[in-house]
C-alpha cells in the first residue's frame, strides 16, 4: 500500500518503528485470538476425522466451494455459546443473538422434553386433558401507538401464542411492573384495552400481580401475561412437521406493527398512514383448522418478522424454503418506509399475522378458509417447502434473482448509504 510521507506521527505507537511514518504492529484483539483458536480446533478435528475415514474422494463435479459450504453448515450447527460478557440489545431482538441466548443459557439450564421444541407454547398433559401454556412480556415504547397500545399487545400476543399451538385460549394472568410517577389515567386506559382485547378473543384475565419500582428503574409500564388453553384437536402442530411440497401462507400484509412503532417513536421525521396489526388470531386459526386437515405448523410472526419464522421452519424440519417476493403482501406505506430506512419488511415485527405451513395439495383450500375470515382477507400463498438445500431460506426477488434470507444477528439497523 502507498504510505506517502506522513508528517504527523500517531499519538501512541506501541510497536512503532518507522520514524514519522504510520505506526506498525500494535496489539491484537483477544476475542479474535479466541475465535481463531476455536476455528483451528474445529478444522483440526475435521482433518483428523477425514484421516480416520481415509481421505474423502471428492464427488465428480464437487468444487471447493461446496466443501466450504459444508464447513459453514457444520459451524452453524455447533453448540451455541454466548460470547458477550453482558446482555446487549441484540439479545432481545429475536434474531441469532436471541436464539443463542435461549439455547446456551435457558435451555441448557432448564432442559426437559416439554421445553425442548421451543415452540410458542408448551403442550402438557393434565389428567388426560391436553393443555397449552405460554408466557410473554411486553416492554413496547411508546406505550400508545396508532392501532393499539401495550394492553392489546399483552393480551393478543399471549392469545396468539396459544392459538398457533392449536389450543383454544381460555385464561390469562397479568403481571404489571410500574414505574414510580406513572400516570394512573394511562394505567386505566391500558387495562381497559386489555379487557376489550380479552373479550374480543374470548378469554378471561383471572389472576395478576403488581410491582412498583423507583423512578428511572423502568420505562413507565411493563406487562407480563401468561395463558393456558386446551388442545382439542388431534395431532401435533410444529415447524418440525414441515416437509417438501408443503405450501407456506401468511394471513395478511407483513411489517405493519414494526413500522408503526418505529414511526411512532418520532425519531425519524417520517410520517405514514400505517397502523399496528395487533389482533387476536384464535378466530382465524380455529376456522382454518376446522376447514383444513393438512395444516402442519402455525407461527405468529412477531419479533424477527416472517423471515425468522421461515428460518425456524427450515432449521427445525431440515428442509429448504423458497418464497416469492411478489407474492408476499406488504402495504405500500410499509414498503416505502422500509426503503427509506434501508430495512427489509421480511424482518419487521407483526402482532396479528400467522404463517401457515400446509400440505401442498390443500394450499388453495387453506387460502380460501383464511380469506373467508375477516382477519385473513389478504392472506396469500407466499412459497413452498423444498427438499434442497436443507436449512436455507431463499427468496425469488421481484427483480428476478434469488437470494438467501438468513436470520439477523439483532435488530435491523438503518444503513448509512
Amino acid at each position: 500500500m502507498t504510505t506517502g510521507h506522513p508528517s504527523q506521527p500517531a499519538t501512541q505507537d506501541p510497536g512503532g518503528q518507522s520514524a514519522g511514518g504510520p505506526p506498525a504492529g500494535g496489539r491484537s484483539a483477544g476475542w479474535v485470538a479466541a475465535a481463531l483458536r476455536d476455528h483451528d480446533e474445529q478444522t483440526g478435528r475435521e482433518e483428523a476425522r477425514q484421516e480416520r475415514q481415509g481421505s474423502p474422494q471428492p464427488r465428480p463435479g464437487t468444487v471447493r466451494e461446496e466443501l466450504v459450504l459444508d464447513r459453514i453448515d457444520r459451524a452453524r450447527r455447533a453448540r451455541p455459546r454466548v460470547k458477550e460478557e453482558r446482555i446487549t440489545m441484540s439479545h432481545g431482538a429475536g434474531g441469532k443473538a436471541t436464539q443463542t441466548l435461549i439455547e446456551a443459557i435457558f435451555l441448557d439450564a432448564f432442559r426437559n422434553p416439554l421445553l425442548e421444541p421451543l415452540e410458542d407454547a408448551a403442550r402438557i398433559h393434565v389428567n388426560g386433558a391436553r393443555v397449552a401454556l405460554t408466557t410473554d412480556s411486553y416492554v413496547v415504547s411508546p406505550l400508545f401507538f396508532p392501532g393499539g397500545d401495550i394492553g392489546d399487545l399483552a393480551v393478543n400476543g399471549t392469545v396468539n401464542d396459544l392459538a398457533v399451538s392449536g389450543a383454544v385460549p381460555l385464561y390469562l394472568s397479568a403481571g404489571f411492573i410500574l414505574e414510580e410517577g406513572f400516570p394512573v389515567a394511562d394505567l386505566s386506559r391500558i387495562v381497559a384495552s386489555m379487557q376489550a382485547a380479552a373479550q374480543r378473543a374470548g378469554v378471561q384475565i383471572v389472576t395478576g400481580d403488581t410491582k412498583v419500582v423507583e423512578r428511572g428503574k423502568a420505562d413507565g409500564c411493563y406487562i407480563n401475561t401468561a395463558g393456558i388453553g386446551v388442545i382439542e384437536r388431534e395431532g401435533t402442530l410444529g415447524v418440525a412437521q414441515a416437509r417438501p411440497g408443503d405450501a407456506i401462507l401468511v394471513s395478511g400484509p407483513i411489517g405493519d406493527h414494526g413500522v408503526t412503532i418505529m414511526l411512532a417513536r418520532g425519531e425519524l421525521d417520517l410520517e405514514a398512514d400505517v397502523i399496528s396489526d395487533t389482533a387476536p388470531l384464535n378466530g382465524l386459526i380455529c376456522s382454518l383448522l376446522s376447514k383444513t386437515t393438512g395444516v402442519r405448523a402455525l407461527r405468529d410472526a412477531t419479533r424477527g418478522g416472517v423471515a425468522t419464522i421461515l428460518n425456524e421452519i427450515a432449521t427445525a424440519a431440515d428442509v429448504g424454503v423458497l418464497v416469492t417476493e411478489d407474492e408476499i403482501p406488504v402495504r405500500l406505506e410499509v414498503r416505502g418506509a422500509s426503503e427509506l430506512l434501508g430495512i427489509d419488511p421480511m424482518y419487521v415485527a407483526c402482532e396479528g399475522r400467522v404463517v401457515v405451513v400446509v400440505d401442498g395439495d390443500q394450499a388453495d383450500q387453506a387460502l380460501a378458509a383464511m380469506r373467508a375470515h375477516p382477519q385473513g382477507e389478504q392472506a396469500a400463498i407466499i412459497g413452498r417447502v423444498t427438499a434442497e438445500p436443507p436449512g436455507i431460506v431463499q427468496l425469488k426477488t421481484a427483480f428476478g434473482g434469488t437470494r438467501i434470507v438468513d436470520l439477523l444477528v439483532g435488530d435491523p439497523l438503518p444503513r448509512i448509504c
Partner: protein
Amino acid sequence: MRFVDEFRAADKAHALAAKIAALCEPGRQYKLMEVCGGHTHTIYKHGLEDYLPEQITLVHGPGCPVCVIPMGRMDDAIALAAEPDVIMTSFGDMMRVPGSHGSFFDAKARGTDIRMVYSPLDSLKIARKNPGKRVIFMAIGFETTAPSTAMTMLRAAAEGLSNFSIFCNHVTIIPAIKAILDSPDLRLDGFIGPGHVSTVIGCRPYEFIARDYGRPVVVAGFEPLDILQSIYMLMQQLSEGRAEIENQYSRVVPWDGNVVALRAIGETMELRPYFEWRGLGFISHSALKVREKYAQFDAERLFSVPGVRVADPKACQCGEVLKGVLKPWECKVFGTACTPETPIGTCMVSPEGACAAYYNYGRLTRTRVKEATRS
C-alpha cells in the same frame, strides 16, 4: 411503488442480460469491481448475479465506510464515549462494529451513553437538549456523508454551541481505488463507479483510472437496473477496446459534482497525511480531519484519544478479497471463525461488506440456486 418499481422491472433485466451475454468474448473472463458497498447490497438484495453469464464476476470493493474503520479507531471511539458526561452518537450500522474489546453495543451494555441517530443534525438536537453534557458525533463515511457533517459543524458554529463535537473518520474514495489499482496482483477489467460519492465529487476525479490504468469506469445508480445497465456499458467499452469514464447515474450525478457540498467540506475539513483502513493498511491522504479553524468541534483536540493501533488479524484475508484476488469463500476463516455475528475482518462487518453480503445472501453457488429454484 413509483420511482422504485420502474428500476426493478424483470422484463427489462432479461433484455439487458441478453445484451450483456452477447458482448462476452468466448473464453474470456471478466472481473468488474463495484466500488461502493451500496451497490454490493443492491446486487445481493435483488439477486442480480443470477442475470450474469458465468464469465462475468463481480468483485466487491472497499466502499463500505463502516467496514473500513480499523479496530483501534473503534477502541478510540469507545474510549471517547466513556469520558465523563459524554453522549456518543452514531449511525445505526456502526453499533455492531467490533473493536478489540467489543462494539458500541457492548459498551452501551456496560453503561456508556451511546445513542443511535439518523443524521448528524439529530446529534445537534441532543446537544441543545443536554447543555450539561458533551455530545460527540461519530462521523463516518466517504464524500457522501462528509457534507452533512460539514454542514452540521457550520450550523453548530452559527448557533455558538459549545457542547458538540465530531470524531472525524471521514475517508476519501480516490486514494482507496488508487491503492487497489497499484496492487501488483490486480485482476480487474473495469469499475462500477460509486453513485452517491459522485453526486458530491462528480466524475472528473476518476479520469486517471482510464488515462493512467486503462480501465473503464461507469458511475452507477443504486437500483438493480442501474447496475445491470452499467455492466452493459462497461462490457460495451471492453468489447470496443475503450477505457472511458461514463455516467449511467446522470439523473443524479452532475459531471462536475456538487460545488456547494465540496465547499462546505473544504471549509471545515482537510486531508490527513495518512489513515489506516481495515484490510488495506495505511493509505496516504485518504481521510479527512477537522481544520484548525473549527478546533472547538474536533473531539480529537478536545479529548485525549488513546490512538493505540490494533493490528489486523493475520488469518484475515480481507485485503485479497478487496482486490479481487480471492473470493469471500476462499478465505480460510470465512464462515467459521469469521461470521456476521463475530466479524474478524472488514468485509464481514457491515451487511454491505463483501463477505457479509456473500454469507447472508450468496452462499450457494449459482448452479445450486438454479437447481433449487427450478419449479
